[in-house]
């Protein structure tokens, strides 16, 4: 429980010293379909790694294999360099926070926290000390004598975190620990978990299907879909530089245009849209000229009424719908043959408020539009 100076982000830069390693892991429950398909993942010591993905994409399954409650059908999981496939859960020394907390209802908060220490035959005085410290860490010092049922959701959640940490594991798994909380409490708990992670220097594998949660908390995010990691990157990379149509669509808001690549030059390419226009985009994942592609563009990168000639892509658009959101106006426009193209117009003096049916000019740079797989 030392506060390491080099921090988790620094540790994440040293991938060859993997603390947790999934080595071509596959999992099937029924012998017919693979729920996890060839998973390779290295997690560095001290890292906060989030598994993000839609429901049923295999996140919990991966976590359960790591915790030892499910066995990998194929492949190997290594913890600190040693294979753990045949180590039973209670000998792995991995802390775990469950989605429904799983606090023992017949024990008080203190007894819950003492449990992992008692089964480790820790001395009584040591237990008292560690339990107290863990309770203080989650700011629940006065609640030691309560039963879980007498605590609010957020308080139970904190106790669950404290219990997973009290025996000082190096690795803590959290399976959607904030799923049951309301938005405000969620944000507060995200902050607290992050704070605890930073101060203890533990490795955390976190599962969520809330992208905002993943973006704010993680060192790296593994985006899961259909049992495959679609992209493993830092939050910034994931948002700014999605590498597949799925990731672009799953994280953040995203305008999509479909077309066929007509010309490739270096990092860029020209794409003819289904509607006829030609746009310039960054070449990310296109197999070659003539290939179909999905173009992805973040709404906030669209420039309203640009100076003619300043951008390679400038088109006429018509306002279809306006949603007032305070700091900006979310505007749906019809452009290039699609009518679900979103533009964010800042609520500022320079931008006169548009009306429905009005036309405007929109433009964007070739850098901001990413040509991806057809999806």
């Amino acid at each position: 429980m030392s506060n390491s100076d080099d921090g988790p982000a620094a540790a994440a830069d040293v991938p060859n010293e993997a603390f947790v390693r999934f080595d071509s892991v596959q999992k099937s429950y029924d012998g017919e379909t693979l729920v996890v398909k060839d998973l390779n993942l290295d997690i560095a010591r001290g890292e906060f790694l989030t598994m993000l993905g839609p429901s049923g994409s295999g996140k919990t399954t991966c976590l359960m294999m790591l915790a030892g409650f499910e066995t990998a059908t194929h492949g190997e999981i290594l913890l600190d360099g040693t294979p753990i496939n045949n180590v039973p859960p209670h000998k792995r020394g991995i802390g775990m926070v469950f989605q429904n907390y799983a606090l023992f209802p017949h024990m008080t908060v203190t007894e819950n926290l003492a449990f992992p220490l008692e089964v480790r035959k820790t001395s009584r005085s040591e237990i008292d000390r560690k339990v107290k410290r863990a309770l203080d860490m989650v700011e629940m010092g006065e609640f030691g004598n309560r039963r879980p049922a007498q605590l609010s959701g957020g308080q139970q959640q904190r106790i669950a975190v404290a219990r997973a940490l009290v025996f000082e594991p190096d690795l803590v798994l959290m399976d959607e620990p904030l799923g049951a909380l309301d938005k405000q409490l969620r944000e507060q708990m995200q902050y607290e978990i992050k704070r605890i992670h930073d101060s203890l220097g533990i490795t955390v594998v976190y599962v969520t299907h809330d992208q905002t949660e993943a973006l704010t908390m993680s060192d790296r995010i593994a985006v899961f879909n259909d049992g495959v990691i679609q992209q493993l990157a830092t939050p910034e990379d994931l948002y700014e530089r999605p590498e597949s149509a799925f990731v672009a669509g799953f994280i953040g808001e995203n305008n999509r245009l479909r077309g066929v690549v007509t010309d490739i030059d270096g990092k860029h390419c020209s794409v003819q849209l289904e509607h006829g226009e030609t746009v310039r985009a960054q070449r990310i994942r296109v197999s070659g000229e003539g290939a179909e592609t999905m173009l992805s563009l973040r709404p906030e990168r669209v420039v309203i009424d640009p100076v003619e000639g300043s951008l390679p892509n400038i088109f006429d658009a018509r306002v279809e719908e306006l949603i007032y959101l305070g700091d900006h106006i979310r505007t749906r426009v019809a452009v290039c043959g699609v009518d679900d193209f979103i533009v964010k117009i800042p609520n500022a003096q320079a931008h006169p408020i548009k009306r429905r049916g009005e036309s405007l000019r929109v433009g964007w740079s070739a850098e901001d539009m990413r040509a991806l797989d057809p999806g």
Partner: protein
Amino acid sequence: MTPAPDTAMVTADGLPLKLKLRQAERRKKLTAFLLVTPLLLFIIVTFVVPIFDMMRRSIDNPEIGEVLPRTTEALQAWDGRDLPPESVYAAFAADMVEGRENRTTGRVATRLNYEISGMRSAVNSTARRAARLEAPFKESLIETHARWGDPYTWQVIQRESGRFTASYYLSALDLRYDESGRITLQPEEQRIYLPLALRTFWLSGLVTVITLILGFPVAYMLATLPLRYSNLLMILVLLPFWTSLLVRTTSWIVILQSQGVFNDIVAFFFGEGARMQLMHNQIGTVIAMSHILLPFMILPLYSVMKTIPPGYMRAARSLGANPFTAFRRVYLPQTIPGIGAGALLVFILSIGYYITPALVGGRTGQLVGNLVAFHIQNSLNWGLAAALGTLLLGSVVILYFVYNRLIGIDNMKLG
């Protein structure tokens, strides 16, 4: 938010809110009450009334007061020492004459016979000759039957002339009045009911423990197996419920008797000498009752276990507990309401059990319930049967309170 204390809330039409609410609620309550009325009446008629009637019978004592009113009155002045004065004998003779005419002396004969054996014939023979008795009645009565010359006889008549009596309870607890009128325990070899009660509690406890040991794993499997298998298992558990109790008990006879299925198998392997006496003793009672009461243990256990998410065990394991510790410290304590409910149910059913011990219990496998039945059907001593029944009921009530103290009745899950 709270209204000022001196301004009561009123509804739009100016009536006090409380009154309005009560009017609105009354209708609902009335409907609810009407809906349960049939059941309420049914329970009162078939359950509450018989129980109170039984409790009344256990202390009811009309015979002597009604049939021997003069004697009762005359005995009030008697100090209980030596023999009563002539006035008592005269009153008794008069009561006997009248009783003979009304054919009521038989009741006194039976009642006194419960207290002193042999009194039935004494009263009956006296009643037959009552009309021919002549003064002095003391001498002529003693001549008719020597019992009338024993002060103890008159002490008993005096004691039992009241409207109510404790004597049925004393008998049910193997107590009696000694010569000086104090309550003492029966001599060891004459005790019947205390050893029987002890045996009933011991066997019931044994059956409870056996059903718990057998039922716990089954309930666990019911609660954790995939639905497909657990449904099948549930049918197997419930199957006995759909079979008549008599059929089940007689099947045990087929299995357990000395020429039965089980003993035949034993004899096949270990020779004829290995046959065991499994029936007409306590073993038979315990085996058959455990089987019959097993569902009553499994179902409450199952309903509790069903509500324990498997996540708790996983959490315990992830915290470092081996499977056994996780079970003992996390799973088992959460099943206690189920264990309590099942044990209470099986124990209560056991201590009142009757038909199975009657069929397979023989002489040593009988329970209190069998003696209650005996007193109702054979000896016709309903007062004693009622006292035994009330004592059984009392022990159930005590058990209930003990359970409530230890586990809390609100935690009980019966199904």
